[in-house]
C-alpha cells in the first residue's frame, strides 16, 4: 500500500470515528444533565400537532416536563399546564414528553405532548423521570426537579415564579 493511500485510509478512519464519538458524547451529556449544562438539541413528534425542536424554543423560557408512566394521565398534568399557560405572557413555554409503554395512551393536553420513540435519531430520553427541567432562553438548564410530579408541584410553582421574575429583572437590566 502506497504512502498516499495509507494516509488517505488513516484520514478516513479518523473522520468516521469522529462521528461516533460526537454521537455517543451527545447521549452521555443528555443522560447526566445537571443545572448549568447546555441542554442537547432534540426534535420529537407530538401526539397533538407539529413536532417540536428544542433549538427553535431558544429565546423563550421552557418548562420541559418528562413524564413517568402515564396512561391518559391528563388530570395529573392539568396544574402544570395551567402554570405554563399563566406564564405564557412572560414568554414561557411548556412541553410534556411522554414515553409510551404497552397499550398506554397519551394525555390529552393543550400544550404539546412530545412522544419519545427511539426510532427518531434526532431525539434523546432523560433517564431520571419524572422530572421538570427549566431551560432558559439561551438553552441552558437552570433548574432540575426530579421525582413525583404531584408531590413536586408546589416546589415547581415556587421555583418557576422566582425563575421567571429573575429572568425578567435580568432582561430589564441589560
Amino acid at each position: 500500500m502506497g504512502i498516499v493511500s495509507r494516509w488517505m485510509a488513516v484520514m478516513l478512519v479518523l473522520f468516521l470515528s469522529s462521528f461516533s464519538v460526537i454521537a455517543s458524547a451527545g447521549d452521555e451529556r443528555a443522560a447526566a444533565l445537571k443545572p448549568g449544562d447546555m441542554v442537547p438539541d432534540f426534535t420529537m413528534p407530538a401526539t397533538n400537532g407539529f413536532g417540536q425542536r428544542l433549538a427553535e424554543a431558544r429565546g423563550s423560557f421552557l418548562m420541559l416536563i418528562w413524564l413517568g408512566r402515564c396512561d391518559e394521565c391528563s388530570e395529573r398534568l392539568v396544574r402544570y399546564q395551567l402554570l405554563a399557560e399563566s406564564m405564557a405572557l412572560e414568554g414561557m413555554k411548556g412541553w410534556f414528553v411522554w414515553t409510551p409503554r404497552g397499550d398506554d395512551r397519551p394525555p390529552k393536553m393543550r400544550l404539546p405532548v412530545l412522544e419519545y420513540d427511539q426510532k427518531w435519531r434526532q431525539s434523546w430520553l432523560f433517564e431520571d423521570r419524572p422530572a421538570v427541567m427549566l431551560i432558559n432562553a439561551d438553552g441552558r438548564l437552570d433548574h432540575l426537579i426530579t421525582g413525583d410530579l404531584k408531590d413536586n408541584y408546589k416546589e415547581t410553582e415556587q421555583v418557576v415564579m422566582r425563575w421567571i421574575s429573575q429572568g425578567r429583572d435580568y432582561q430589564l437590566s441589560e
Partner: protein
Amino acid sequence: MRLLVLVGVFMASLVHAEDAAIREDVMSVKNAVLDLNRDLYELERQLLSPATTRAAFHITLNHGEYFEPLSVELSVDGQAEIQHLYTERQVKALRMGAVQPLGDLNLAPGKHDVTLIVRGVDHLGQGRELSITESVTKTSKPLITEFLIVDYEELQSARVELKYW
C-alpha cells in the same frame, strides 16, 4: 558616541527586518495550512461521496392545502436511510417554497428501489400517509432528485411525485 548611535540604529533596523521576515513566514505557513485544510476537505468529500456514488434527495411542498407533513422517512432497497421530523416553522418554510435537502447517500451504479413515506395530516385534521416507491437508475453521474408533495384538487388530497434534476 555618534558611532554607538549609528550601530544602535543599524541593529534596530536589522531586528525590524528579521521581525518582518518572521511575520511573512508565519503568514505563508498560515496560508499553507488553509490550503491544506481546503484540500483535506475536498479529499474527504470526494472519498465519502464521489460523483459515481453520490445521490442527493430533496423535498418540496406545493401549496400544501390538503396535506401538512409531520415526518418523512426515506429508504433505499428496503433499508431505512433518512428520517426527519417537521416543526411548524419548517412546514411554513416549505409552504413558502423552501427546498429541503433530505440528505446525500452513496449508491452504487445500477437500479435501486427508493421509497419515501410522508406522514402528516390532511385539511380535515385526519392522519394521512403518502408514499411513493420508484425504481431509480444510478449512473456514473451524480443522481439528484426532488420529491414533490403536490395537491390533488380532484380528490381534495395530495400525492408525492419524483422529479430528476
